[in-house]
């Protein structure tokens, strides 16, 4: 190549706009000519709109009522909950829109600062960010009502800083999480610790709130005051400070938030760099050998040497080896254990929570065909019947989930001080898990979608991410509704339930599973090529 004629590569001068344009272009191209995706996107827009309007209304209420004490409590606590939501929800439900996969920029001459700014600004472009901004604008209304234009102006600065904080914290935490999970085996312990810490934030918050419900109003206000001085609550209270005659607090609080954002962005940048380097040299040496027979290796020497055994063996391997699946198992373990425990410890009834935990377990299968993408073609050419496929996948998942449910039942019963209810708790969990599978399996066939082939376990394709997350939430809501009757019956039966809870729960769960899996299997028989096309990346 003649070097003389090559014009010097123009290093972009740090403007994030190319990243934003690229993201918008990716969203638009993802929607073009795909009515299904457009529908998902539109429903995502609608639901985000509902969230935004509802959030605005809630935050604006104290201002409309002119209640300063309510405002001083609601704004910092509600705002903190929002920030924590940005941390927890991507980990548990939504995933992160990593259409701008950092690894793809590894070959471009970009400085780290440019890359981080660009990715950060691009992350701001999206439904969740817009919805959050609109929702928190309710605090501007409140500040304006209570303290006039100056307070409103301060609060505008506050919500912008707050939004930046939300996005920064969500990116930094998921990126750190992803980097940890990317390693194959060696750092699993560290990963689990990280998972525990991250997933604990939500339950802890719930526990604190539940505890406060019983405490007096003044104590509640104190906690809100303290929260208002942490990065979590600071951005949402600057307007109130102006209204309350403390304008000196505004620069201080904004400084706290900006420092937090800067720290988070630095952390994100550090993990990103690791991720970008990690993709190149992650291959392990081929020195390890295994002299068992191929079939013995696949089946662990235990499963039957049949088609079903092979399918289950492969699925079990995938739950252990694939980062996305491992991440969902770890998240479920942590949330499933700590949510009921924190509720029990704060004196609440863990009953409804068992429904939630059982349903959450099944959610991991909501896009089960998306995990391995077009590899499903192998099962199609081998002519695996739909029901066998569905049963084997559910069986492999149950191998991991049912022992966890036992642990959850035991822990919940013991923490609640009612060891006699272990069996009934377990029955309730199995019922919810069975119903969850019954709801989720048909969804996994009908609404399969492709996941990007990155190593990040939280990545989802661009566009429609919100709607897909909400589809999952809808499935959970459906599960809770369908399995609620059992809980109601259990509540009315009282002590009798301790005896029949286990058989009744298992029967209820099995029935729901059989209906759902039969439906899913028969649908799959008719829709195999469509499922394959749906999960093939780039189609």
């Amino acid at each position, binding site marked *: 190549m003649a070097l003389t004629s090559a014009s010097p590569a123009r290093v972009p001068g740090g403007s994030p706009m190319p990243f934003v344009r690229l993201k918008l272009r990716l969203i638009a191209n993802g929607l073009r000519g795909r009515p299904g995706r457009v529908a998902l996107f539109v429903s995502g827009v609608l639901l985000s709109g509902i969230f935004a309007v509802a959030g605005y209304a809630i935050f604006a209420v104290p201002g409309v009522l002119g209640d300063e004490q309510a405002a001083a409590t609601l704004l910092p606590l509600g705002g903190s909950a929002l920030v924590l939501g940005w941390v927890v929800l991507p980990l548990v439900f939504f995933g992160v829109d990593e259409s701008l996969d950092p690894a793809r920029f590894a070959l471009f001459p970009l400085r780290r600062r440019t890359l981080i700014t660009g990715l950060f600004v691009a992350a701001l472009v999206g439904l969740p960010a817009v919805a959050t901004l609109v929702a928190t604008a309710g605090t501007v209304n409140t500040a304006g009502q209570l303290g006039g234009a100056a307070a409103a102006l301060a609060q505008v600065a506050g919500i912008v800083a707050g939004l930046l904080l939300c996005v920064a914290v969500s990116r930094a935490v998921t990126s750190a999480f992803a980097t940890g999970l990317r390693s194959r085996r060696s750092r699993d312990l560290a990963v689990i610790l990280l998972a525990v810490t991250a997933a604990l934030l939500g339950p802890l918050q719930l526990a604190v709130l539940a505890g406060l419900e019983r405490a007096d109003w003044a104590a509640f206000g104190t906690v809100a005051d303290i929260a208002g001085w942490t990065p979590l609550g600071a951005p949402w209270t600057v307007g109130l400070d102006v209204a309350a005659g403390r304008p000196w607090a505004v620069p201080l609080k904004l400084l706290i938030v900006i420092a937090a954002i800067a720290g988070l962005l630095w952390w994100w940048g550090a993990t990103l760099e690791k991720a970008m380097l990690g993709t190149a040299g992650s291959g392990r040496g081929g020195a390890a050998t295994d002299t068992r027979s191929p*079939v013995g290796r696949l089946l662990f020497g235990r499963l039957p040497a049949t088609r079903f055994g*092979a399918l289950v063996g492969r699925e079990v391997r995938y739950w252990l080896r694939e980062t996305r699946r491992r991440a969902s198992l770890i998240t479920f373990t942590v949330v499933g254990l700590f949510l009921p425990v924190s509720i029990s410890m704060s004196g609440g009834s863990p009953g409804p929570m068992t429904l939630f935990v059982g349903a959450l377990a099944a959610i991991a299968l909501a896009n089960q065909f998306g995990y391995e*993408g*077009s*590899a499903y073609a192998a099962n*199609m050419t081998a002519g695996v019947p739909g029901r066998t496929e569905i049963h084997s996948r559910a069986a492999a998942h149950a191998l991991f989930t049912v022992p966890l449910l036992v642990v959850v039942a035991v822990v919940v019963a013991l923490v609640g001080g009612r060891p006699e209810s272990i069996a009934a708790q377990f029955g309730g969990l199995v019922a919810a898990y069975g119903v969850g599978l019954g709801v989720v399996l048909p969804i996994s066939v009908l609404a399969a979608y492709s996941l990007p082939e990155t190593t990040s376990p939280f990545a989802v394709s661009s566009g429609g991410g919100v709607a897909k997350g909400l589809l999952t939430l809808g499935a959970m809501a459906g599960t809770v509704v369908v399995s609620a009757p059992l809980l109601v019956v259990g509540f009315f039966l009282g002590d009798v339930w301790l005896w029949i809870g286990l058989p009744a729960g298992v029967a209820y769960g099995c029935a729901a599973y059989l209906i759902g899996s039969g439906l899913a299997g028969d649908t799959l028989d008719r829709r195999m090529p469509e499922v394959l096309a749906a999960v093939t990346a780039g189609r």
Partner: protein
Amino acid sequence: MSLRGLVKHFDTKLAVSGVSLDVPAGSFYGLLGPNGAGKTTTLSMAVGLLRPDAGQAFLLGYDVWADPVAAKARLGVLPDGVRLFDRLTGAELLAYHGLLRGMDAATVDQRARELLDVLELGTTNKTMVVDYSAGMRKKIGLACALLHAPRLLVLDEPFEAVDPVSAARIRDILQRYVAGGGTVIFSSHVMEVVERLCSHVAILSDGVLRMHGTLDAVRGDRSLEEVFVQVVGARVGTGSELAWL
């Protein structure tokens, strides 16, 4: 294998428009075409991975879309651009395919070891397929397609990214397979390979079958490459473009 008027649209683009093709039993059939000609789309429809908008595909007399189980049982496929179950090791993947095909464990073990050995993938190797190189992935994919001794092999780009030594070995395996009564259809854009191996050739471009028949009938007294370039209608370089290079 015989295809009857297969048609497939992607969005508004016509990827394959009415391909009809007969692959006689015992033939070694090469499907040639430039990039984007519709080779992969055609083969995907032929083996039941992609639902055609119109047309039929028969494998060994069974309609792929009406009687998929019977048709697929005697078929081995190496798809292109499709992932393998790559979180398994090579041996596990072969065992998986064997058991999916309903073979007994002893046969699977014996054949899997033999295939891993012949294709130099290592019988005791614990490397996951995801960490394989592109050529190794092709080889393990081919091994999966061969494991159940099908009567018909459909291979999409089997020689792509495979090193010359392995390619020679694959050619040898396939030639023996055809000599033993099997049928192979494979797609490629490497003329030398097709010319050396095939008894029959079809040329596909822009979703239309331009020429097909026995190798001798298609190429006449010219080289296959000349025929191919002429049929596909490639541009002739003038030397003026890309002058800055």
